[in-house]
């Protein structure tokens, strides 16, 4: 997994990271490279600086300070020596690299007519390592699949940040698109509107993460517009969107229902009440658009399933759970 990351790191930083013991290497979530500031990694919610010999430290005097040459080379490597191809990415402030990993960037912003045109003199990088967990959605699939109708249910996954919402959604997409032999469920057409390029992690339009065999992805597309585009032209069976919240999103979901397209979406929040308070989403809940609400937390680690509710917000009976 670090192989793809290594390929974009300048040799000296690569060497430092490779000196870390295997266990920590596996757990790295972010590598933060800032010009003339200590080299930092984030792993398991902890942060640490790295020394030039590749040891963890909290002492900033011992840390390695990336030079201008390092950041320059890093940019060369991230862009495959062709920054001119990344105009859209520079506008958005992040670049997706091979393997679906995202590199957030900061530097001098150039404006044109009040809008961000590009970022120059890039001096800060946040390399976020994408972790796809194949099978992370196994436990919720019985709730999503409607065995009688041989289809799936409209589902809203509710979760506070950092609880593995996107990871879960990605695996849901993979499973319903490729089919699940355990439930005799053959795959159906999935359309992912991937506004932040996090679900599929596309590079040049090609998904880097496993999102299923019958999946189409609209990369970096605003959610509401993307859903409408899919409904109009790609005849999906299911639409998958991350982090709905605006009024247009809700309208697009109503439209999807009218077109007979199922929706699986996620929303920020720690319970249904919190989501229902948001005016843009409350109508969706009142009109019982979603048949299942899956609420996540971090109680027993990332991706703990707190409760599953049905359209009337009652806990789902254990009958469904038996299938799992």
């Amino acid at each position, binding site marked *: 997994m670090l192989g793809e990351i290594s*390929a974009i*790191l*300048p*040799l000296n930083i*690569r060497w430092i990271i490779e000196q870390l013991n295997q266990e920590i290497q596996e757990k790295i979530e972010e590598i933060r490279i800032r010009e003339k500031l200590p080299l930092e990694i984030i792993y398991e919610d902890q942060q640490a600086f790295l020394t030039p010999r590749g040891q963890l430290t909290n002492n900033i005097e011992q840390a390695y300070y990336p030079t201008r*040459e390092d950041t*320059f*080379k890093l*940019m*060369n*490597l991230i*862009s*495959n*020596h*062709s*920054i*001119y*191809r990344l*105009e859209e990415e*520079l506008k958005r402030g992040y670049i997706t690299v091979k393997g679906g990993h995202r590199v957030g960037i900061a530097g001098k912003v150039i404006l044109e007519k009040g809008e961000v045109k*590009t970022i*120059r003199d890039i001096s800060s990088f946040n390399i976020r390592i994408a972790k796809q967990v194949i099978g992370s959605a196994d436990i919720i699939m019985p709730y999503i699949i409607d065995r009688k109708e041989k289809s799936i249910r409209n589902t809203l996954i509710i979760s506070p940040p950092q609880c593995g919402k996107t990871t879960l959604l990605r695996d849901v997409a993979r499973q319903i698109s490729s089919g699940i032999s355990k439930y005799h469920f053959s795959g159906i057409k999935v359309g992912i509107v991937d506004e932040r390029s996090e679900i599929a992690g596309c590079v040049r339009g090609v998904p880097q993460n496993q999102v299923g065999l019958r999946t189409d992805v609209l990369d970096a597309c605003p959610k509401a517009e993307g859903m409408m585009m899919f409904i109009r032209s790609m005849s999906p069976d299911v639409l998958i969107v991350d982090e709905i919240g605006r009024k247009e999103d809700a309208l697009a979901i109503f439209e999807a229902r009218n077109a007979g397209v199922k929706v699986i979406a996620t929303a920020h929040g720690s319970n249904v009440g919190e989501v229902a308070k948001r005016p843009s989403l409350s109508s969706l809940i009142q009109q019982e658009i979603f048949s299942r609400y899956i609420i996540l937390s971090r109680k027993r680690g990332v991706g703990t399933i707190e409760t599953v509710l049905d359209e009337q917000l009652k806990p789902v009976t254990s009958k469904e759970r038996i299938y799992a």
Partner: protein
Amino acid sequence: MLKLLGATLIIAASSFGGFYIARLYRERPIQLRMLGQALRILETEIIYGSNPLYQAMEHIGQRVTGALGLIFLTMSENLLKFDGASTFECWEDAINQHFHQTSLKKQDREILINFGQTLGISDKEDQMKHIRMTIQNLAAEESLAREEQKTYEKLSKNLGVLLGMLIVILIY
């Protein structure tokens, strides 16, 4: 008899030297023009084609002949092969490998090296500016090179032959 052979050899060597220098004068403006054309291809590849640099370099290498083409082909290979190297390091290496095979001069090399420092590291608009500027610099060198060619090409040839003759006369 032996003396005659020696004399012939001296004149031949000296003439060859003269012709070689004349060839450099003749080829330099041609190669400078080719280089300008190569950069125009690069501009198209970057601005309209949006092709990755290694591909752009390969395309140029296929269309430009001789040692100049080799610079671009080597650059393309370097970009793919060199692990963890900056764009400029790849370019510098390609120049070091093949520049001496061309008829270009030191100042032309300077232009190319300077150009390499901007290659691929900015947005399209900026890339276009740098490419255009380099093309103009090369064009300026080209017109100077043509002047030089007029003055020195024939002169070098004649001088080579005459120098050989002079040495032979002095030795006799």
